[in-house]
């Protein structure tokens, strides 16, 4: 590679060179992972698993492709027969019968090949598309089954690229790879056999090109595997930079970032060009290389065959057949270069998908789920321990009992473990020690559907799905009537702005919420949670992007909505805490204060009292 390495280990000078920064020793590219030449165990196993239901179709496919290739390979042989056996009778006694017989066979072979070809293409397409459907189905469901912890780490970008570009890579292989490989293999073997059958001596001369072909192909395979990997890395750089520039265009323009961005883009764009150039030039050596071997072989066959024909040892028909066969012999070799990269990327894609499918959900479904039809909403933490990284506990040993119907507010600095507690209560994670109970049942014994119908969390991350506002409010309870949707919206104070939208509740929120402001999206998310009517509602910073009047509306709603259900509220703003029956002040994963808001405010020297005073001051 002539392009400069993107990461400068010596520490970059400000402004130049090291714009990418450093990440760590394992600074590998996502696309490069598991990308070794040839197939690996995981990808092969996955492919076998996917193809298993199509065993019969595949058997037919193989039969059809054999018929097709036999018919195709027979044609030059029949041409030879036509010349050698069909012409003399005409010459001698103008007897057309032998020739017509042969022509009839050629016609038959041609039609047979056409029919087989058609069958093959349809079957291959059907199997391929069904396999793709199955891959898509499985991967999507599997991603849905994996825990939020997995998603946190894996990032949505990679989840999407697994389901788009990797599936596309498999599609490419199924579409062209199988045909190419099978046809190429059959052609190589079949042609070699027929050549030897036609004339051993001339056949051996023709096949003497074998080692040259093998050497050339082997060199190309290795070189293109290397260059392919570099190309993938470089294109990933281009894509990341492009997407981030466009996604963050507001900051780019506001800070006059355009020239510097252009500089960086030129750099990655040119690295990509250079990598592609290497790959293209490999092909531009390989293809004519094969052509050269082929043409030299043809010239040698002409020379030696011509001599043999002159000596009467082979017929003109055999010589013609040789020339026709040799044409067919080299073409699939050149095609190999076309689909070799296809195989490689499909193999890498399969490997990554296999890796995902092998991930066991971090929060597995219980084998025998406990029944809990109507939850009262009592939440208990018993000696719960949890840490994201082994050796660094976030919650060392937590005991907590939230009686049904109580509203608890969690207060504390960032990193105190409030959100972690919420995530354990919703079973986004499982505790590493102790247990979390809902109405006395361990969460791990509840089917996720049961759990989710009783415990719902609303976070700051107010994601809206494409569809109408009503669809989004109805998300947790699809059978809800329009009246119920409106009622839920009214309850959280969202009705006013929703009905002011161009098409009211039927307004499409396309483009991830489009013109809805962060606060408005949050209100929709609230309505969604209220409509779902859970026994336990967890609000993690759910009101932080609301303005004060909206927040007040939500709080009013909270008083009524939370009246008959358990709630855990996490908030920076202490105003939110006022609705709670009970306040827990957390620090380093432990509850350090526990009491009613009034009680804690009054506690002299207490942390909550201190926070409250600071907050009250800020209002002055």
């Amino acid at each position, binding site marked *: 590679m002539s392009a400069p390495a993107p990461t400068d280990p010596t520490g970059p000078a*400000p402004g130049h060179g090291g714009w990418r*920064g*450093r*990440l*760590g020793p394992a600074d590998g590219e996502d696309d490069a992972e598991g990308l070794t030449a040839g197939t690996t165990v995981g990808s092969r196993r996955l492919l076998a698993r996917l193809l298993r239901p199509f065993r019969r179709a595949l058997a037919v496919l193989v039969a059809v492709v054999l018929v097709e290739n036999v018919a195709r390979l027979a044609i030059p042989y029949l*041409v030879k027969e036509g010349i050698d056996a*069909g*012409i003399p009778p*005409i*010459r001698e006694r*103008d007897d*057309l019968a032998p020739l017509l017989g042969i022509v009839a066979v050629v*016609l038959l072979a*041609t039609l047979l090949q056409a029919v087989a*070809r*058609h069958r093959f293409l349809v079957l291959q*397409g059907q199997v391929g598309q069904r396999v793709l*459907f199955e891959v898509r189905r499985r991967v*999507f*469901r599997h991603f*849905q089954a994996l825990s939020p912890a997995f*998603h946190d780490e894996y990032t*949505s970008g990679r989840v999407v690229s697994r*389901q*788009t570009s990797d599936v596309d890579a498999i599609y490419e292989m199924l579409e062209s790879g199988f045909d190419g490989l099978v046809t190429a293999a059959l052609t190589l073997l079949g042609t070699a056999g027929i050549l030897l059958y036609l004339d051993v001596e001339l056949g051996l001369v023709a096949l003497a090109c074998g080692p040259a072909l093998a050497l050339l192909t082997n060199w190309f395979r290795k070189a293109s595997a290397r260059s392919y990997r570099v190309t993938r890395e470089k294109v990933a750089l281009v894509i990341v930079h*492009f997407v*981030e520039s*466009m996604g963050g265009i*507001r*900051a780019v*323009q*506001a*800070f*006059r970032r355009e020239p510097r961005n*252009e500089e960086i883009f*030129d750099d990655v764009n040119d690295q990509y*060009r250079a990598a592609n*150039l290497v790959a*293209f030039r490999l*092909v*531009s050596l390989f293809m004519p290389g094969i052509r050269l071997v082929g*043409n030299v072989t043809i010239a040698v066959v002409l*020379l030696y065959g*011509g001599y043999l024909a002159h000596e009467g040892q082979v017929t*003109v028909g055999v010589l*013609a057949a040789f*020339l026709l066969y040799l044409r067919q012999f080299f073409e699939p070799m050149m095609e190999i270069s076309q689909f070799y990269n296809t195989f490689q990327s499909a193999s890498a894609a399969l490997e990554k998908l296999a890796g995902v499918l092998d991930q066991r959900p971090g929060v597995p479904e219980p084998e025998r789920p406990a029944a809990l039809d109507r939850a009262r909403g009592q939440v208990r933490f018993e000696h719960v321990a949890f840490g994201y990284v082994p050796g660094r506990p976030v919650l060392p040993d937590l005991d907590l009992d939230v009686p049904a119907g109580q509203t608890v507010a969690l207060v504390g600095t*960032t990193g105190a473990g409030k959100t972690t507690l919420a995530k354990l209560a919703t079973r986004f994670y499982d505790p590493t020690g102790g247990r979390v109970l809902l109405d006395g049942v361990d969460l791990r014994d509840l089917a996720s559907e049961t759990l989710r119908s009783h415990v719902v969390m609303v*976070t700051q991350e107010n994601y809206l799905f494409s569809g109408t506002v009503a669809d989004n409010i109805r998300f947790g309870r699809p059978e809800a009537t329009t009246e119920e949707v409106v009622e839920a919206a009214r309850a959280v104070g969202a009705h006013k702005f929703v009905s002011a939208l161009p*098409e009211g509740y039927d307004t499409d929120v396309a483009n991830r919420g489009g*013109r809805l402001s962060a606060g408005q999206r949050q209100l929709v*998310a609230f309505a969604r949670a209220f409509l779902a009517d859970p026994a336990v509602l967890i609000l993690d910073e759910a009101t932080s992007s*609301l303005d004060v009047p909206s927040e*007040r509306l939500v*709080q009013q709603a909270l008083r009524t909505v939370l009246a008959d259900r358990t709630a855990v509220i996490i908030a*920076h703003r202490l*105003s*939110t805490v006022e609705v709670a029956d009970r306040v827990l002040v957390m620090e380093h994963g432990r509850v350090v204060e526990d009491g009613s808001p009034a009680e804690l405010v009054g506690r002299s020297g207490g942390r909550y009292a201190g926070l409250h005073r600071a907050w009250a001051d*800020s*209002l002055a």
Partner: protein
Amino acid sequence: MSSVRTTAPSAPGPDPQVAPPADVRSLWRLRGYLRPYLGSLTLMLVAALGGVALSIGIPLVTRAIIDGPVTAGDLSALLPLCGLALALGVLEAVLVWARRWVQSGAVLGLETTLRHDLYARLQALPMAFHTRWQSGQLLSRATTDLSAIRRFSGFGLLFLLTNAVQLVATTAVLLHLYWPLGLVVAAASVPIVWLSMRFEKRYVVVSRAVQDEQGDLATLAEEGAVGIRVVKSFGRAEHVSRQYEQAAGRLLETSLTKVRLAARFWTFLGVIPNLAVVVVLALGAVGVGRGTLTPGELVAFITLMLSLVWPVSSLGVILAMSQEAMTAAARILEIFDTEPDIVGGTRVLERPRGHLRFEGVGFAFPDAPQEPVLRDLDLEVRPGETVALVGATGSGKTLLTALVPRLWDVTSGRVTLDGVDVRELRLENLRALVATAFEEPTLFSMSARENLTLGRSDATDAEVAQALEVAQAGFVHDLPYGLDTRIGEQGMALSGGQRQRLALARAVLARPAVLVLDDTLSALDVHTERLVEDALRRVLGATTGLVVAHRASTVLLADRVALLADGRVTHVGTHHELLETVPAYRELLAADAGTPEDVPA
């Protein structure tokens, strides 16, 4: 109630949802990009035409060998003829090499230049454009569409030409060799060309349907990934999975239609030349038997005819490729044709004081001109003064701040800086004078330093450290590689509060004449917020500030407060004045919500 909306979109520029019509003109308009490579293209064409000549020449040498040394017994000619065949064969390989080698450099250069220009243009297009186009749609233009153009200009265009030449030349040679057979071949190519054209039309329709459905599926995959926590929270995995499967099922059906269509076509393309071989063999053998054709001619004939199979059958592929390239060109031109409507003026403020005025400002989004967000708004921020913007959700506070650096342009009235309309200032100058810390901070997958020095790439480490100090973002120094640590999506994950503090440091570092803070502290806890505010107070003491505030504590950073309602500034005054005299303001900020006497139990 809101009036009935007209469905006709009145937004300027192309609609990302509508595919542009593909025609040759779009491709032709990109011809300028080929100019630097005219030499290369000529060379490629010459090499390709040379290849055509050789593909005709080699079978003719074969004929000479069969009819000469083999049949006529003239062995002395064998060696030179074979030498000729060898020379032609080597020459052919060299020509293929030369064509591909030159082609690689040329088409990649072309692609890279186009991608550069596309990127540069996109960066220059205003927010009005970018809010309507998702980055995914732009990316597919920068990757898929550019590859289509690259493939066409390197491969499609060349072979469209050479295949046509080969078709005509070979047919001529065939007619010359033995006209009855030549006619058979010529006749066979007519239905192929006709069918190729028809097939290509239908294929384009189905292919586009497949593409659209793939796009829909990708959208669902993205929603399933980005919204996973919501899906989990409500236990709706089954629902979204079924939705996805339905879309995948639709795609399956359309793809199967495509498969059937393609299978029929490819089979047809394969069978026609083979049928021609049958006819040629029958008639040719009779011709040889009756002495009207030599054996060598027959072999040459069949070889030549088979050499036509690829040029003819690839016609469909090449036509599809051209179609693709035309669509791609049209899609790229859509962007090139969108003129950046926010362009800078010519004036430069040498010594800015930071006197900001909004004079009768009105604003409506381009696709909703009937529903102005701001109307006839007046506001003055004197040099060195800090004004807080307070208003209900959706009252247009953020938008108002975006008008200053011209991320959006006013639709009426004007914004002036030191008395000069911002539209008269050079854009670089204006945006150097104004820096914004956004509520949702954008971080790029680059080093922390690169992210911080966004607005001032020449900042020294000391200045960076100072800005980090103001924003309480000292955590950057504790990252594994300090300022060189990669952050952003592809780097170290940072919390919302950390990201906001970086965005704040970034804005402070730009040392603007006007500093805009768009609710920058919302994700900070009370303690950090207070520290940041103390530091900010010092910074704002020296510059003009515009602060979007939701909380009383942030409002207190400002000297005066402007209350926004119904797209206007209804009141301006100090926090305490407004608290006392304006009930609406009191409702927004008074007790920061939730005191018992405010909220009926």
